């Protein structure tokens, strides 16, 4: 029995190794900062202060995090079904279009109580339907979802440019933006809400969407782990043979999970269009869909992990802006690079250190003399 290798305990597998992977990613990012002749420790301090050091910074951090929760959940729910949805960016874009169209159409005739649920519904509907096409092609025509969702990102971008430049542009205006929505078609900012209760906080784009984001986290958790549909999605993701044994139809599961995924991504439109911009414009998704991949990988596809990872990336985005201001040598794109490193080390190389850890763990536990025989 001496030469058998003990498997890693759960706390190392799902706790320690992901933390080490993210640390490697951050370490490499530190090296990049070193390479441009700046002090990584100094930079980290600036970022942390920028992200959490004062009210406004915290507001911005959470505003960014709101987007990442949506896109992170979107990637995660597809992952649970064994699918890789790279199309979050396009689905978010089209989701925002849905919000914008609904508001432009209805904002004069309805009160906020009705407009907000309509906005939520149309974000989900547009994002979900936009994801349904690649899902259908994967489930029933066998075309690979990774490639189709990439293509759909570009198609979404073209649709938006066309609509904004030619159709939805506010007449008599140069930049391709729609008219501003009425006051009823705007989500209140958090500083406004706090103001109603007599609490003064700094102005920031943080708005009511963050509450919806947290509600979505709970709903996704309940859906994935507490309903028969979530159960079937996970079964297909883990083992398609067992799924067909259990009478589950994989094609249907692909459709269901991708529609939900696209709907969640579409909620970025809620935060950006209804919450911050109050009009339809170009490029409001700003790569948040891709950040969702990093967030989901880092959060291990669990809503709780996704919230933590979202806050981390929100802090990176906000701190990165601050960093670019304080140390002009380092631009905001540093955050994008860090995101890439996280995807590399937490995603593609997620198991790189597992053999090392297994070796180390076995060595340490053997020298600690544990005479317990594990027998099944």
């Amino acid at each position, binding site marked *: 029995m001496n030469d*058998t290798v003990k498997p890693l305990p759960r706390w190392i597998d799902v706790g320690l190794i992901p933390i080490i992977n993210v640390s490697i990613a951050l370490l490499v990012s530190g090296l990049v900062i070193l390479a441009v002749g700046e002090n990584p420790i100094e930079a980290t301090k600036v970022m942390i202060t920028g992200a959490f050091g004062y009210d406004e910074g915290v507001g911005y951090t959470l505003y960014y995090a709101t987007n990442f929760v949506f896109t992170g959940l979107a990637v995660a729910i597809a992952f649970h079904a064994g699918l890789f949805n790279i199309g979050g960016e396009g689905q978010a874009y089209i989701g925002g279009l849905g919000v914008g169209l609904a508001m432009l159409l209805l904002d004069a005739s309805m009160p906020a109580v009705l407009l907000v649920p309509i906005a939520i519904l149309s974000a989900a509907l547009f994002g979900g339907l936009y994801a349904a096409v690649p899902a259908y092609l994967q489930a029933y025509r066998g075309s690979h979802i990774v490639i189709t969702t990439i293509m759909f990102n570009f198609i979404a971008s073209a649709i938006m440019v066309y609509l904004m430049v030619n159709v939805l542009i506010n007449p008599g205006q140069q930049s391709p933006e729609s008219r501003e929505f009425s006051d009823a078609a705007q989500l209140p900012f958090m500083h406004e809400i706090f103001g109603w209760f007599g609490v003064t906080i700094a102005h920031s784009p943080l708005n009511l969407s963050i509450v919806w984001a947290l509600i979505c986290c709970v709903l996704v958790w*309940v859906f994935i782990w*507490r*309903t*028969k549909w979530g*159960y*079937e999605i*996970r*079964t297909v993701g*883990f*083992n398609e*043979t*067992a799924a*067909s*044994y*259990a*009478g589950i139809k994989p094609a249907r599961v692909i459709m269901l999970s991708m529609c939900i995924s696209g709907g969640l991504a579409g909620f970025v439109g809620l935060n950006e269009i209804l919450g911050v911009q109050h009009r339809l414009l170009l490029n409001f998704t700003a790569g948040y869909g891709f950040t969702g991949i990093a967030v989901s990988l880092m959060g291990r596809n669990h809503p709780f992990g996704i919230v933590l990872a979202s806050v981390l990336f929100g802090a990176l985005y906000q701190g990165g802006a601050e960093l670019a201001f304080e140390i002009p040598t380092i631009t905001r794109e540093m955050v994008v690079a860090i995101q890439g490193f996280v995807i590399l080390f937490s995603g593609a190389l997620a198991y790189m250190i597992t053999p090392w850890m297994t070796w180390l763990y076995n060595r340490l536990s053997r020298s600690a003399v544990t005479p317990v025989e594990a027998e*099944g």
Partner: protein
Amino acid sequence: MSDMISDTATQDGLAGESPTNHLALAIELKNINKSFGAVRANKNVNLPVVAGTIHGIVGENGAGKSTLMSILYGFYEADRGEVFIAGNKVRIDSSKAAIKAGIGMVHQHFMLVDTFTVLENIMLGAESSPLISNSAIEATSILEHLADNYGLHVRLSAITGTLPVGEQQRVEILKALYRRARILILDEPTGVLTPSETDQLFEVLKALKNEGVTILLITHKLREIMAITDCVSVMRHGEMIAHRKTSETSKEELAELMVGRKVFDSLNRPAEKIGPASVVVENLTVLSSQNVPLVDNISFQVRAGEIVGIAGVSGNGQSELLDVLNGIRPVDQGRIVINGREITPDHPFDPAEARTLKIAHVPEDRHRMGLVTKFDARESIILGYQRLTRYNPGMLLDQQVVNDECNRLMALFDVRPHQPEIKSANMSGGNQQKLILAREIDKAPTELFVGQPTRGVDIGAIEFIHEQLLDLRDTGCAILMVSVELDEIMQLSDRIIVMFEGRIVADMAREEADIKTLGLMMANAHDTTDADHGAQATSSAGES
């Protein structure tokens, strides 16, 4: 009696005088050991093979034949042991090293690129020039020579994937010969061949032998061993049990050696109340994606309150039969009637409907199908029943109900450790199997289809599982059991069906069966079935 045979065989085969030790050895394996995790696939295996002979290796599924050959061909490396080729000790750590040592292998699943021409497949890895055209010229002339010498004619410009399997196999043999192999390993070469293709293959092998090539033939078909080999070695449970000269042994002796004889007391209580037929299968045919029949025009019945055991070496259509009976695979021809529901190609059903018909299924492969290894026990306990209203009183899966259910079934079937939150992967094989049985039997099915009920299960659990199956039968359930373990078949079945190459070769009451005859039937070496087999095979070959 049979115990004695296998004991003496072990002694004179391994420790005493080998019948072959005075001749030049092409291959000698000494003390080969190989484990996969906790499974010891090869235990101290010794194998001498005389140069220029055809040497057969026989054994049941999982006896360790394929592992041993993969070690010889460098696909796996042995944990311990030595390999001698033509008297020299060699280290074979890759296929490259094996090829260099003059070993060629025809794998059971061909190692061919379907989109390539025959010529390209043969050259691959052994091209004589950096340019394909130059290599092709040389290869073509060598191959024409080989084709003439051994009767291995294949059109070199044909696209490999479009050729019939027999010709693809010839490509594999040519591949080995082109690499100047002096030792040729064939792993279950006739499994995919028609009888006439088999005859052609044997002609080729004889021609090769005459040219001094040493051939290792791995098979479970004793008839072929008797027909073509010079010597034969028998493996069982990872060990080399015996070596024999083919001329000095018989099918009967080999079958005994292969199957062995475990001590078993007759646990079976005969069925008391056998009811009407509740599963009727008529002229059922299941085709592969290449339209090769996997289940070939079979008919049988299972009555309420009896256990029908399907014996056979695995890969003879049993798995496909189970899949069809549970709605996982469609019926291609023929019909099935279960509980009055008729299933035909035009009226298919699916696993979800099967469950509503009170059909339960314990699949052969619990890791691939029976449970999700990454699920908790309490999640695996509802697999397939996840939509039952009693688990879903509202929108949500009721955790309390599911947890209680898991606790109840774990207690009832003595699943250990008794923890609903344990990961399915972290349970032992026996406990996983008990969990699945608990899930299926608890639904009080009227039909149970069970594959390999005790594969990889510890002794204590085997007895428990057998008891459960017999109890279920006595409640009036119709049980169809597929097993490669003859002991299990003999112990539990009220009736026994033997399957070979997709067909039923025997259907008898248990009292009429004995383990020796069953072993012969499974290897298609039973005399009364020979003629039958030949006729059927020829007719099916003619159709395709």
